[in-house]
């Protein structure tokens, strides 16, 4: 169970920064061109990302709700309640 709990901390982001947004998929030429780090580019990158924290919280809630028969996830449930995501 300890390993399972630890596994919650190892979740990977579902998309990586270099993955193009589906709405604004760059052409091959675009990808070969260096681009300035401007607000527009950052906004675009943020839209292309699913925050890994959302996934973490979702999985953590599942374990807290359905896999907590022995109370091993009580601390986790308390934390989720503290951050108002329970």
């Amino acid at each position, binding site marked *: 169970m300890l390993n399972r709990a630890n596994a919650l901390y190892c979740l990977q982001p579902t998309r990586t920064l270099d993955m193009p947004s589906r709405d604004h998929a760059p052409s091959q030429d675009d990808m070969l061109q260096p681009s300035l780090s401007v607000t527009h580019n950052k906004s675009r990158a943020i839209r292309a990302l699913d925050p890994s924290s959302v996934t973490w919280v979702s999985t953590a809630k*599942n374990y807290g709700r359905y896999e907590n028969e022995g109370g091993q996830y009580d601390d986790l449930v308390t934390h989720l309640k503290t951050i108002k995501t329970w």
Partner: protein
Amino acid sequence: MRIISLLPSATEMVCAVGAQDELVGVSHECDFPAGIPGLPILTRTRTTLPKASGAIDVAVREMLKDAIAVYEVLVDRLRDAKADVIVTQDLCDVCAVSLDDVHKALKELGTGDVNIVSLKPTLLQDVWDDLRRVGVALGREAEGEAAALDCEARVRAIGQRSTTALAGAKRPTVLTIEWIDPVMIGGTWMPELAQLAGGEALLAEPGVHSPTVGLDELSAIDPDVVLIKPCGFKLERTHEELDLLQQRLPWDTWSAVSKGNIYLADGNAFFNRPGPRLVESLEILAACVLPDEFAEYRTKHKDSLQRIAPDLSIVGL
């Protein structure tokens, strides 16, 4: 609302309409999107299936012949889930628990007030309409409509792009393989995906289940592009059966082999799940059929698509 999904594609649809947090049970095959782990698993395989493709096929055919279900619903867990809605399927007894199994389990529990949404898509439009149906059933009609419109628009855009790129030229012929031993051809929505990707599907009709073909029929064609994406197999699993390709396919005569146009794709995540990720499946197929036009999809799906050399080694895209 308390929602159960007994099908991986249905789970993806439930999440696509924004109801992931209302899921209270899933099938043993549901593994996407992230955040599913930890949910109660309500189904299992009735017996341990063998590992090789040919042996799996024999075992499953025997079970179906004897009217034995391949999967079963875990009734106790179904009771504990206290579901309001169950999303399941009536398309394929080999894919997931059947609709009959679900009805029997609910009858056993004496539960009659559960809304069962049974999906049976055979064409692309059926899949997008299922997204709408799931949305309506979950009280998220607007989200279902938006998700369906998004999929339709993305698919249409790729179709228009491939048509423009072809500029009237002959469409490359495409063979998609859904199972290696025996060889089954991608049916149902696969011919439509091939058409949208700029190709012309061989040995398959839209909306018709996968036909099983022999070496004679395969030797009579010479596809320009071959995509192998065994149902339920990730890339690593398919790698274990690469040797079979030379035995089951006319490896020495197909020009696609010598030209390096034989591709492997993750058949577990894509193509065989009639849900929102059929759009990504189309992107993968488009990257195989018109590689110059859809070069960005090769980059995007580099972890899910590989090319095979004549000597069966995996080569770069």
